[in-house]
């Protein structure tokens, strides 16, 4: 289904849609408040943007540096060209250790690779441990937001899910009590897991270490208890030096949730004694995007989701209205790299208001890239034929003054009828203006005819 059709469904419940909008807008407001307390905020954004641009121009070298440092620290480094290879590597490690239960903290990469399904097919139980992610996992649904995976759900709905899966009393809808139930349930999982998998927020070439940020502490609970820790990362997560973390960590939590810092910003350098630590570096289309000059900078993304929260379209259509697992503005410039036909409508699910680019902590020109994808998608024939026809006709008329004047007169003539019928997507909800008797150009010509010839403007 198209984004427009999904959005139509989402907006059928206006009260709920308004709630979704306001909830996410509040996150944007919190971001504004925290950013305003940082006098060097705009300088930070510029620095972050330039560090990422530099890194992308030396990506291969930094990955090699990271690999050798990490290996020297006793971390095993793996490379995966695509999602399938990533899944095979992860499963291989788990199978070698006879793992039956894996606790996983938030990793959009494993979502991208459909890891859970792959492991479950091999008989491994996968427990997502981020609260929001656990909720949607129990529903067998994907996250609707990359930072707040269950943001689309009401408390009562979470209560129903927990009643069914965790045995909480029916009708429980208190956030505190629901969270407590999840805490107890997931603590048991942490204590009995055979392995832990985490994502990576930043990997540092200089040290071979990596940083994982959470508020709940779930990544740490998993990684520090389990005998095996696997960290999966896209190759674009690398930054050159440890000191650069200062720039990115100051931006990340403030942009994501309006907190001055995440609660846990954990720096992993080496496995703990007796533990095995693995890192899987995944390409899966990223090197292709790196080669696309117009879209390269999308790889600078630090997954803060500030563009989701600020996007007026996302807030009013919800994460599930987008066809890609990463929704919102950033998802809409990443998805066409993967499949232009399947996600061809995503770059059109935007008014190009530019709020995403203005809020982005690493200054990705998101709305400009959306516009560029639109050109590519139509040029490759992924637009409906009637749209192409309509645009060709419009272009033709607007280029020919006589034809344009005639079309204008006709349009104004039929305008009251169109307004009355309310048959088209515009007039169904909006009136068209009352048709003026005379266009501006007609008025001007008349006025100038009435003037003495000497005062006429030069031709």
């Amino acid at each position, binding site marked *: 289904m198209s*984004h*427009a059709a999904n*959005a*139509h469904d989402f*907006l059928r419940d*206006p009260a709920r849609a308004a709630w979704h*909008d306001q909830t996410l807008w509040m996150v944007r407001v919190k971001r*504004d408040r925290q950013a*305003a307390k*940082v006098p060097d905020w*705009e300088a930070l954004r510029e620095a972050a943007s330039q560090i990422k641009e530099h890194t992308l121009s030396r990506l291969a070298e930094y990955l090699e540096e990271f690999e050798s440092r990490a290996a020297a620290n006793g971390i095993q480094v793996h490379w995966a060209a695509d999602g399938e290879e990533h899944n095979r590597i992860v499963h291989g490690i788990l199978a070698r250790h006879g793992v039956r239960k894996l606790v996983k903290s938030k990793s959009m990469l494993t979502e991208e690779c459909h890891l859970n399904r792959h492991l479950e097919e091999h008989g491994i139980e996968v427990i997502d441990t981020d609260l929001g992610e656990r909720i949607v996992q129990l529903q067998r649904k994907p996250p609707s937001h990359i930072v707040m995976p269950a943001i689309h759900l009401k408390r009562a709905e979470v209560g129903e899910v927990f009643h069914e899966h965790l045995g909480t009393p029916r009708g429980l809808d208190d956030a505190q009590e629901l969270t407590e139930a999840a805490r107890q349930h997931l603590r048991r999982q942490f204590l009995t897991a055979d392995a832990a998998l985490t994502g990576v927020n930043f990997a540092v070439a200089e040290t071979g270490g990596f940083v994982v940020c959470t508020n709940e502490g779930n990544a740490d609970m998993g990684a520090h208890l389990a005998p095996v820790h696997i960290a999966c990362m896209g190759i674009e997560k690398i930054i050159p030096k440890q000191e650069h973390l200062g720039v990115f960590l100051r931006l990340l939590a403030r942009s994501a949730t309006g907190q001055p810092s995440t609660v846990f910003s954990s720096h992993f350098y080496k496995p703990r004694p007796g533990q095995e630590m693995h890192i899987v570096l995944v390409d899966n289309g990223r090197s292709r995007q790196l080669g696309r000059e117009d879209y390269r900078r999308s790889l600078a993304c630090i997954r803060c989701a500030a563009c989701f929260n600020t996007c*007026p*379209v996302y807030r*009013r*259509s919800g994460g599930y209205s987008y066809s890609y697992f990463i929704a919102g503005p950033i998802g809409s410039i990443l998805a066409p790299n993967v499949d232009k036909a399947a996600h061809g409508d995503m770059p*059109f*699910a*935007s*008014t*190009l*208001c*530019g*709020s995403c*680019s*203005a*809020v982005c902590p690493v200054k990705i020109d998101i709305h400009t890239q959306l*516009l560029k994808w*639109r*050109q590519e*998608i*139509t*040029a490759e024939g992924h637009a409906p034929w009637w749209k*192409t026809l309509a*645009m*060709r006709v*419009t*272009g033709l008329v*607007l*280029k020919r003054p006589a034809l*344009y004047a005639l079309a*204008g007169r006709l*349009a*104004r003539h039929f305008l009251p009828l169109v307004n009355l019928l309310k048959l*088209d*997507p*515009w007039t*169904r*909800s*909006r*009136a*068209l*203006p009352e*048709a003026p008797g005379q*266009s*501006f*150009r*007609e*008025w001007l010509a008349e006025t100038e005819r009435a003037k003495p010839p000497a005062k006429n*403007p*030069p031709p």
Partner: protein
Amino acid sequence: MTLGLFIPCYVDQLYPQVGRAAHSLLCQLGHEVVVPARPACCGQPMSNSGYASLSEGCVADFRAEFDRFERIVSPSGSCVLHLKESLEAAHHPLAHRVHELCEFLHDIEKVTSLPARFPHKVGLHSSCHGLRGLGLGRCSECLAPEFSKPAKLLSLVEGLELVTLERPDECCGFGGTFSVFEPDVSVSMGRDRIRDHAGHGAEFITSADMSCLMHLGGLLAREAPQVKAVHIAEILAGCVAEQRG
């Protein structure tokens, strides 16, 4: 100065009063104002819909007709942004001589007084392309000091009171063809905007972009007819009373 005035297609056909107001305002300031026969359109509707190649003719016509002017003014931020970006991409110097009306009045003309009077509560809709594209003001995402060229110009109008908005610069949901291909989201966004303006007591919603006002005005006509949408040129030129009674 002889100014080239670019009146975009939809303003020409549907909102001639906005063209007349811009024309009158520039004449009041002592300029000679010329409106060339071509082009009718900046090309943005095609370009934003993914048919940039179909808009090239419009930009070429614009270049041909307007290159002779030292300054070109247009009462439509969105069209100006598209022209500027297209011309900049082609490294054409004309890019720096095309101005949105408020930008022209504020930066080039540096007006400090206007003979206009408009004793009403007005909500200023900061159009996205004017705000974030042309930099007519500071957008709320940005942490730089606050400013707004349209608001500053409106402060010169006698009796006009600007209302404070809950969300000062959220998009109205027009978005060109977005408004017809995504009508539900578009209308939902527009409704939220008019609620914000009306809820803060605005009698009029104004903007430097008529396209946003076409969308908001269309909703107002159906849902809150007591509030009117007027282009900023109409207020600054003192033409609203004459046009709308």
